[in-house]
């Protein structure tokens, strides 16, 4: 069974990049265009891991983490934040909100897969 990734990013470019990399690596890929949509579709999609951008309209990445962590049943799903902010406080803030890890943009295929591996154990 393929590992299912729910990617939440308002940038079509990033969504396409993620889709290309993840689908090639054998992941199942579902995307949402902003935080609100991501949270709304979370239950239906039931992903194994969530990748979310931080800066998004409607609901930002922190909001996504808080809402997903807010419900007990979901509290364990790994959430990776996509961030160009290499600033430590951004990561700290994401982690305090309950993020599992982070992927720094720009990412290459290997670091993306490596990050996913560390939070899902799956190579695909």
């Amino acid at each position: 069974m393929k590992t299912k990734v729910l990617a939440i990013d308002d940038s079509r470019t990033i969504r396409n990049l993620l889709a290309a990399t993840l689908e090639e690596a054998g992941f199942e890929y579902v995307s949402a265009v902003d935080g609100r949509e991501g949270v709304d579709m979370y239950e239906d999609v039931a992903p194994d891991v969530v990748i979310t951008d931080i800066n998004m309209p409607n609901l930002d990445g922190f909001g996504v983490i808080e809402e997903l962590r807010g419900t007990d049943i979901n509290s364990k799903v790994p959430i990776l934040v996509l961030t160009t902010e290499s600033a430590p406080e951004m990561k700290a803030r994401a982690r305090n909100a309950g993020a599992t890890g982070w992927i720094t943009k720009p990412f290459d295929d290997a670091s993306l897969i490596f990050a996913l591996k560390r939070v899902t154990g799956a190579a695909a």
Partner: protein
Amino acid sequence: MAGSIQDTFFEECEELLEATDEGLSAIEGGNHDPEVVNAVFRAVHSIKGGAGAFGLNELVAFAHRFETVFDEVRANRMELDEPLIQLLLRSCDHLYNLVAVARDGGETDQAHHDMLIEALDKYIPEEEEDLTFEPMGLGGPIDIAAIDIPQAPTEETYQIHFRPLKDMYSTGNEPFFLFQALQEMGPLEIVLDDSELPGFDSLDPEESYLSWNLTLTTSEPRSTVEAVFEFVEGLCELSIEGAGDADADAAALAALDAVFGSAPVDLTPVAEPTTMVEETTTPPFEQPAPVPTPEAQPEASGAKPSAPKAESTKSEQRGPNPTLRVDLERVDRLINAVGELIINHSMLAQQIANLDVADVRDVETELEGFKNLARDIQEGVMSIRAQPVKPLFQRMARIVREASSATSKTCKLVTEGENTEVDKTVIERLADPLTHILRNAVDHGIESPENRESANKNRIGEIRLSASHRSGSVCIEVKDDGAGVNRPRVKQIAIDKGLIPENAELTDSEIDNLLFLPGFSTAKEVSNLSGRGVGMDVVKNAVTGLGGRINISSTPGKGSTFTIILPLTLAVMDGMVVSVADQTMVVPITSIVETMRGNDDMINNLGADGTLLSIRGSFVPICDVAGALGLRKEDNDRPPGVYLLVETETGQRSALAVDDIHDQRQVVIKSLDGVCGEIAGVAAATILGDGKIAMILDPESILATSPTTAGAFDTERRMSNAS
């Protein structure tokens, strides 16, 4: 794949730049709403993110500076004053350039680039030092690239002590997965220490009791081993101890390796013998269940209920405004097919009319329905091609800014009717003429701030760009509040250049329209803006090439207005089918003011070859279409035919004489490009219901070719007639 994603990026960039532009314009207009500010920030941020993915480092670096400055604004640490807004607007313009260079190649204006960077840097607080944005693959702290670098396979053995704190579990991190990642690097031995695990009664399910001692032998560098624990840093007690330095000699390594490799249990510093030793070569190992809270279990892969298959499609349909991206070629194929459908309808109608059947009313009713449906489809397809002029107008705002700074004038562009939708091709082909008009408006129209002040005008010149729909056409207007056309000078230049005779007497409107004459340029010296050897005649040609008209009106001291009237679509139009010298032709409805059947009383001769039509007390020149097209020698006993009263762009009326009117119908425009050269008076062709080809006439150019109606541009002849 990468190519198409990059295309997506550039497409998205356009949208993001438009959003940035729009947001900045709103901010410039005084709207400092946090949501507007955030939208701009996000847009630039997304450009940076995408650009980083493709290694567009110059774009990334610039976007990053922009974003950093804007972040200060967003966080209310910096005030958005006028100089900053102007700098941001210019930076946004520069982003456009950088994106264009990244996409199409070419050179950026390095001096301009450096100047903007320097200006932006002044706004960046000291502590934001890290402005170097590392290129792709090196951005993250995980230097995964290093893994691929072939190194001498010097194996190293690490002793890793790992004790999660309870907070780690609430972030969704799993020791098991970390171990799996380690296991891929080389032989791994895992020893669980559950010595701290209390009895069941005193167990706190939220607490963390377990720790692990790991022994990893790997040729990966230490940084990679550490990277595995990156996400849990600070959420666990962690020690990673290498058995030796990387440059330790091979013998020492081998010795250590032997020790660690052969006696893992002996080296385990766990006091209690409740250890779990896993042989690394036997996959898969059991999940070393951390404190098993009830929810913790279903997280292993595969335990989740599978979502319905349609999930991913469903996700695409959500979102506020679902859109579909379609290849333009497909739309054009559809438009062509609709064109054929319309032709097909006319043929069918003709066939039915030719049938020798007594009662065809029912068929005709249905045919009418067919016609309406075809029109609906056509309008639907056209609306797919229609796009708001907003992006075009935003580009023009940039043009005005650039032109203003190049000429040291202060101008602002006010836009109206940005949501007016126009055919995509029209928008594309309108960019150049509009650019030219606006540059001209800034360069020649708007006065210098000092002159404006002494004329009691606002120092800041205003150029108003508006779009609107006007009875089946699109009207685009450029209105400046500058000095207006300097008529004496325009006339003098035209005389000097031999464009008009010295004794020409022209109306104000005719003088204004001299600007459109080929070879006319009022620039005293060649400025780097509008004076590039091309004049307004190029603008006029571009507009007429789109089947449109352009007109100028001007009031001295108050400013000038350029009006461009364009057809809504380029594919289908309403036309009047007429016959001229036994040929069937089509005249565009939009240019016809009224039609009338003439009689001898209405016709007045003027001179040898001039005839005037008298309509309700006023006289208009008559142009015999057949004569103008060279289809018939003008004869005096012309049958009292039908007159189509048409109005030229300058508001002059003329009457086109044709033999008869047959019908009014939609015709599909078929370009004559590549079939034959340019024929004066003929705009295009169409296919009629009987399958015959009919020429679509261009009234403007017919009038210009006819001696009796030649307008202001054929001044010489006109003047010689008058004198």
